[in-house]
């Protein structure tokens, strides 16, 4: 089924002493690695992507997956990967399609940033017993509040009372600064979406629909859902716009800046077709740009159009990929009536992206947050618009560092999928996901138990939230707004002056 002219990457071995020929592996592997042949299980290692479904399900622990050590002659430039890609492309003449995020060994700045904690001069705070506030509002804020004084008679005395004049535009309220990223129904299964929606509701946070519309089974969670409008406008109508808690315009994605999307017809099942409002089996193509947006003023027009269509009741976010001039673009967005800027770094995940984009286009999220936050401050608009960071956020420390660099909140995508069972095998675009996450095949989708999945995702968010509270307490801060943009609490390690300047932080020791 998956022909290959190069040595397999993995070696699948079955310990025949342990195997009881139950054929569980044959049934579980959606890639066709296993076949029963008389009294043994035969394996086709070249089809294996190390998704570990078989290993997890084997009742006898009889399966081992190892790296295939078949030797390629070492060469520092002509690596195994380079050679394999050339062989593939010379055979097919096609663009290499890949999944998940950037797989090159480019710097992860998060790992070169360390955090501060209190010693003596200010006390650290115990978050389990003292208040620790993570509540975050995403949306437009006024530059200042205005009050008016209204004379009232109290006990026969005339007193001027201060009344708030300013009315703040609708925001969404997060109980933790972690949201679930936009991953479309179509790319992901309905069970994944349901699990994420339930978890978002339980954690007092939000999930994004991605550009695939909102399946009716998610309506009960709609006030914890951010709907997305991308260049394909799939599933977008007035009802959809009004249904969620906020709307996000997707301009670009960190894993593939500058190009559109393409959900192949075979993934457009009856249900996906209904949700996207396109015929079953037809390709769902999202153009590279929005063809009603060719400029920043056109973007402002779409933002305002969505505002008008929802009578200014819905916050509108704009998501862009982190590219070289991300700060200037973000500034344009911030001054457009948009309520939040979403920046997606180059390590962001994806169901499908041309490999050349995934691995080569865009900039790290850490640098993008720092640049955008700084630019918006210089323009004096930072306090009026929210910044949401996404793309390669792996743990609570990454969340914490993102906020200290200048974000209000983050989106996590891949981490949520891993919580649902994903092993980051990177084959989402095949529609064969053995874990029932990135597939529409009913027999595979059914493998993902919604309740259990929701529980896992909620656990993950709760655990990170606790860790963030601990880190805040150790830093002597008891509310998240005092961490936002607080780069004083960060130090770099092993970074050069240019990198430190771009991040706006000092090196450790200073």
């Amino acid at each position, binding site marked *: 089924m*998956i022909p*290959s002219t*190069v040595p397999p*990457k993995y070696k699948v071995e079955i310990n025949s002493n342990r195997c009881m020929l139950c054929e569980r592996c044959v049934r579980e592997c959606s890639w066709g690695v296993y076949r029963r042949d008389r009294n043994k299980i035969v394996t086709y290692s070249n089809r294996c*992507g190390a998704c570990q479904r078989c290993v997890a399900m084997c009742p006898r622990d009889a399966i081992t997956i190892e790296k295939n050590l078949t030797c390629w002659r070492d060469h520092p430039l002509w690596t195994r*990967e380079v050679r*394999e*890609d050339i062989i*593939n*492309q010379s*055979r*097919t003449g*096609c*663009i*290499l*399609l*890949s999944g998940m995020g950037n797989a090159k060994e480019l710097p992860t700045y998060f790992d070169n940033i360390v955090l501060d904690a209190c010693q003596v001069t200010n006390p650290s705070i115990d978050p389990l017993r003292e208040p620790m506030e993570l509540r975050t509002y995403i949306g437009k804020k006024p530059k200042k509040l205005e009050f008016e004084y209204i004379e009232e008679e109290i006990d026969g005395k005339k007193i001027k009372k201060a009344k708030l004049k300013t009315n703040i535009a609708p925001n969404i309220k997060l109980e933790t600064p972690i949201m679930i990223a936009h991953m479309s129904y179509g790319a992901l299964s309905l069970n994944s979406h349901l699990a994420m929606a339930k978890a978002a509701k339980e954690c007092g946070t939000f999930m994004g629909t991605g550009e695939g519309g909102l399946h009716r089974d998610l309506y009960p969670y709609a006030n914890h859902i951010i709907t997305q409008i991308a*260049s*394909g*406008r799939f599933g*977008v*109508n*007035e009802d959809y*716009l009004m249904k969620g808690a906020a709307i996000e315009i997707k301009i670009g994605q960190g894993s593939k800046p500058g190009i559109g999307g*393409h959900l*192949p*017809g075979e993934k457009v099942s009856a249900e996906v*077709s209904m949700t996207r*409002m*396109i*015929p079953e*089996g*037809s*390709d769902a*193509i999202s*153009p590279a740009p929005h*063809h*009603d947006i060719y400029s920043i003023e*056109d973007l402002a*027009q*779409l933002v*305002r*159009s969505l505002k*008008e*269509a*929802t*009578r*200014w009741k819905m916050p509108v976010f704009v998501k862009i990929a982190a590219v070289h001039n991300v700060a200037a673009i973000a500034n344009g967005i911030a001054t457009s009536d948009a309520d939040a800027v979403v920046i997606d770094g180059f390590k962001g995940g994806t169901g*499908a992206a*041309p*490999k050349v984009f995934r691995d080569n286009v865009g900039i790290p999220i850490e640098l993008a947050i720092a640049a955008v936050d700084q630019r918006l401050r210089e323009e004096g608009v930072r306090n009026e618009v929210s910044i949401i960071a996404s793309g390669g956020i792996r743990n609570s420390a990454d969340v914490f560092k993102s906020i200290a660099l200048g974000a209000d909140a983050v989106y996590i995508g891949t981490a949520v999928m891993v919580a649902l069972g994903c092993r980051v095998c990177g*084959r989402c*675009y*095949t529609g064969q996901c053995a874990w029932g996450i990135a597939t529409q095949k009913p027999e595979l989708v059914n493998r993902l138990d919604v309740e259990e999945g929701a529980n896992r995702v909620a656990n993950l968010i709760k655990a990170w939230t606790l860790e963030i509270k601990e880190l805040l307490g150790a830093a002597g801060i008891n509310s998240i707004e005092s961490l936002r943009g607080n780069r004083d609490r960060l130090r770099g390690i092993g970074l050069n002056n240019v990198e430190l300047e771009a991040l706006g932080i000092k090196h450790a020791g200073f």
Partner: protein
Amino acid sequence: MSKNGEEEKREVIIDAKDMGYRELNEKIHEVIDKNPKLKKIILKNVLGQRFIGNGIEKEDLTIEIYGVPGGDLGMFMSGPTIIVYGNTDHAPGNTMDDGTIIIHGNGGDVTGHSMRGGRIFVRDNVGYRSGIHMKEYMDKFPVLVIGGTAKDFLGEYMAGGLILVLNIDSEGDDLGKIKGKMIGTGIHGGTIYIRGEIDNSQLGVAADIKEFTEEDRKKIKIYIEKFCSIFNLGDEVKKKLIESQYTKIAPISKRPFGRLYTQDLR
């Protein structure tokens, strides 16, 4: 009479002179909310106000616009009929769900962008990339009828619905061969009918010229008749339009880019 004693109105006139779009559109919403039996809103002195009819869900309502409305006219609209006595700007009928837009003049660039349903009738010409990414779904079938001519990239990414270009001037006389390039580029659903000849060189990627059959003629006849009645064109013109030769443009295949990618499955 409504509860507050005000008479419920069937028709409301709004003078949009010097009004910002937020004010105007909010006024339209208010008028609709207050008068459930409203049939017609007449907007006078419209000049550049954007988003008129945006997101309105009400059948059996007509909005007449005198002047030049701004961009995104009738965006996300579902139901009403908008009649414009003048030209329109960028993207009329953007992501429209249902309803009708009639333009007694020109449509701007990306007329009918991402339309899923409803109809747009443009008396004269439309700009670049009109009918881009139109798509159909179940009973939703978007139709864009252009009286004059269309600029390049007509029906780009088209995924469903119907585009009809009649190629006549306001008197009903022929305009000559259409010059647009890259017609139907990336088309993977729906059909484009253009009155007159189109060369293969004018087509975009994935578009193909198919045989124009009598069945096709039957399909477009209803839209031609509707167009003629809206814009008061005589029977002679109507007959000419119905009997003319059309070029039918449709996708080469449903999966024009199916062979673009190879899986990186190492």
